[in-house]
């Protein structure tokens, strides 16, 4: 049992687990882009058939709302745990690198580095050491020396950018922050829609993906909605003019455009959609047999009673575009003791044979529509955590890629062969750039030697 726990823990803390998770997440994400998202279960069953395997898979694995399904959220949670544990497991190794000093400065050891140089000095031991000390001090700041320069053997370590070792943890921390922000937002926030007809007001937000509504502590009134077009007919701007009300009091007026949301008391409103409703329609009813016509004006909530015929005319619905035939209204005619009859009446085609209800031919003489605006409403208290995570991510990514821990080891040996300098270097990243830097340091030391030579003569 303990073994299982141990090996499970070892797997969760491994890079292998991270890679497996990333691959599984990637494949599930791909599935989510192929299967239509947001389709209700009933629609899936209707599309693929009740007994089809596909419908069974989609509805049982929540593939129609994959990114919000429990198993996908679970995978994301495991990824977060994996990142945290990997970091915790890896941290001691980084600490070791941070504190570790490569103390073996013997020439044999330094020569084994992939980046190493060896050259002779024609000067006194002390002078040679002094020069190297100066050059490295200038380039690397602090240097750490071993042996006193009297023993005939001197060595030092110079390094910079040691903090860069920790930058990668900053990246992982930023990812955790982003996931945390998303979690906070999903638990403490909400997201939904509000549809308000011009002139109306509302305080209910229908929540996305839930059969629930939230009541805002204030009311929003839509004063006006406008659509502007460019000369070529492309939409230019969708604008809602709204007023925030507390009780009967007008608290604030605002204009909401796409890309210009409006926030009030932590609740943000976005221009998301719009449409139009019928406000008033004037109908001409003709009885071809009697050769008579009547004109009635109807509102959705105000049916018209035509006394001479004993009928009531209702307008039920409006479409801006009815199957490509332009605007249409749904009209119903009720007569006592008879079944109500109704039909869609095409406004732009008064002669259309279908513009007929019972014995009447129906034509639209005039109609007035009214816009409604669709506002997306959101409260997300976690968004600031996400922003901080994003900012930190970019900073730490830059630091990880373009900052490195660079070490230079030097050993000066005085023996029968004279004075010899051995140098070696290593960088945690960008070894090419470091190679050039290392060459520069060596060149600078040699130049200092040659200058001393010139002075000496």
């Amino acid at each position: 049992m303990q073994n299982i726990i141990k090996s499970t823990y070892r797997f969760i803390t491994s890079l292998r687990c991270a890679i497996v998770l990333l691959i599984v997440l990637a494949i599930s994400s791909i599935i989510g882009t192929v299967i239509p998202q947001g389709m209700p279960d009933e629609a899936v069953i209707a599309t693929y058939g009740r007994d089809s395997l596909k419908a069974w898979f989609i509805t049982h694995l929540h593939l129609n709302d994959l990114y919000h399904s429990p198993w996908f959220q679970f995978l994301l949670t495991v990824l977060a745990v994996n990142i945290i544990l990997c970091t915790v497991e890896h941290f001691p190794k980084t600490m070791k690198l941070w504190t570790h000093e490569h103390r073996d400065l013997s020439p044999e050891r330094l020569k084994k580095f992939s980046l190493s140089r060896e050259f002779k000095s024609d000067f006194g031991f002390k002078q040679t050491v002094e020069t190297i000390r100066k050059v490295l001090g200038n380039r690397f700041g602090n240097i750490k020396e071993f042996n006193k320069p009297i023993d005939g053997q001197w060595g030092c370590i110079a390094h910079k950018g040691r903090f860069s070792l920790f930058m990668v943890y900053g990246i992982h921390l930023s990812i955790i922050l982003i996931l945390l922000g998303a979690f906070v937002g999903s638990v403490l926030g909400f997201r939904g829609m509000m549809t308000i007809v011009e002139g109306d007001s509302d305080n209910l937000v229908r929540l996305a993906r839930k059969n629930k509504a939230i009541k805002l502590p204030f009311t929003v009134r839509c004063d006006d909605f406008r659509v502007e077009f460019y000369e070529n007919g492309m939409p230019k701007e969708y604008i809602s003019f709204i007023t925030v009300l507390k009780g009967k009091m007008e608290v604030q007026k605002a204009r909401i455009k796409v890309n210009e949301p409006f926030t009030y008391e932590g609740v943000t409103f976005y221009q998301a959609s719009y449409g139009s409703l019928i406000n008033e329609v004037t109908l001409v009813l003709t009885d071809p047999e009697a050769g008579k016509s009547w004109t009635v004006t109807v509102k959705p909530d105000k049916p018209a009673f035509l006394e001479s015929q004993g009928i009531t005319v209702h307008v039920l619905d409006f479409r801006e575009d009815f199957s490509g035939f332009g605007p249409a209204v749904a009209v119903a005619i009720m007569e006592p003791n008879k079944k109500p009859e109704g039909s869609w009446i095409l406004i732009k085609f008064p002669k259309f044979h279908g513009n007929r209800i019972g014995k009447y031919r129906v034509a639209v003489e005039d109609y007035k529509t009214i816009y409604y605006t669709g506002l997306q409403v959101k409260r997300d208290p976690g968004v600031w955590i996400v922003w901080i995570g994003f900012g930190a991510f970019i900073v730490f990514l830059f630091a990880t890629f373009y900052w490195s821990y660079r070490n230079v080891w030097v050993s000066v040996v005085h023996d029968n062969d004279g004075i010899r300098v051995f140098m070696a270097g290593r960088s945690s990243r960008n070894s090419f750039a470091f190679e050039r830097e290392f060459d520069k340091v060596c060149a600078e030391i040699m130049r200092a030697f040659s200058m001393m030579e010139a002075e000496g003569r």
Partner: protein
Amino acid sequence: MSSSFVLSLVTFGWLACSILYVSLMVYRKPSLGHVAKLSAFLVLFAHTAGLLLRWKESYDMGIGHAPLSNLYESLVFGAWALMAVYLFFEQKYGNPVFGAVPSLLAFLAMAYASFSPGVDSRIQPLIPALKSNWLIAHVITCFLGYAAFGVSFGISLVYIVKKKFPHSRLASLFTDMRVLEEFNYQTIMFGFLWLTIGIITGSVWANSAWGSYWSWDPKETWSLITWLVYAAVLHARSVRNWRGMRVAVMSIAGFGCVLFTYFGVNFLLSGLHAYATK
């Protein structure tokens, strides 16, 4: 001179450059390298001028916006970014022989933009969803990322050729494997950095335009998949010490994801990014 005229000249300019880079590979004359490099810089200059001219023309029409708003403009900018990033790295590493793949890709992108009947090259006004300052930041950063991955794709191809046929004439052209490998790594890091910034700027923009910083839109999802692939490359390299061949193969796979994010999502999947299809 109109921008579309300049940009159609640029299309042939990239064709000429790719021919020069290829003949450099075939004839291996250093002088050809200089000519190729010089002409690449000239064409890049003309390309930049064409982009700026188109920007100005949109203002003359009274619908001024950066030329980054539809498929035509993104293809033109993509080709520009690819060659700009390539030339930046060529300058840094001083080896013009990798140029064949990027310049050929740039030519193909430009030719597709200019000559495909499905791509509308007219300057169109901005729809409300694109009216934002984030447009420039988001598109430029994403394309810098894509471009760097394109360059890495070219290097990876060269790397594989050199590894599989070490004694071929082609292989003898390129600098040693270590330089190639380091060059590849640098471009992947560069691309990853910019793709990350591109996704983040897109996310911040989406929060004010669509009301959510992440909506699992197919384009978002595919850019995340691309990002995950390159993140895997970087981790495998630094933690598991993957080098050379494996990195090259993964980079090619990653570039496949880039292409799908760019083309595949537009044409095969529908979503909020639909304005990039025309």
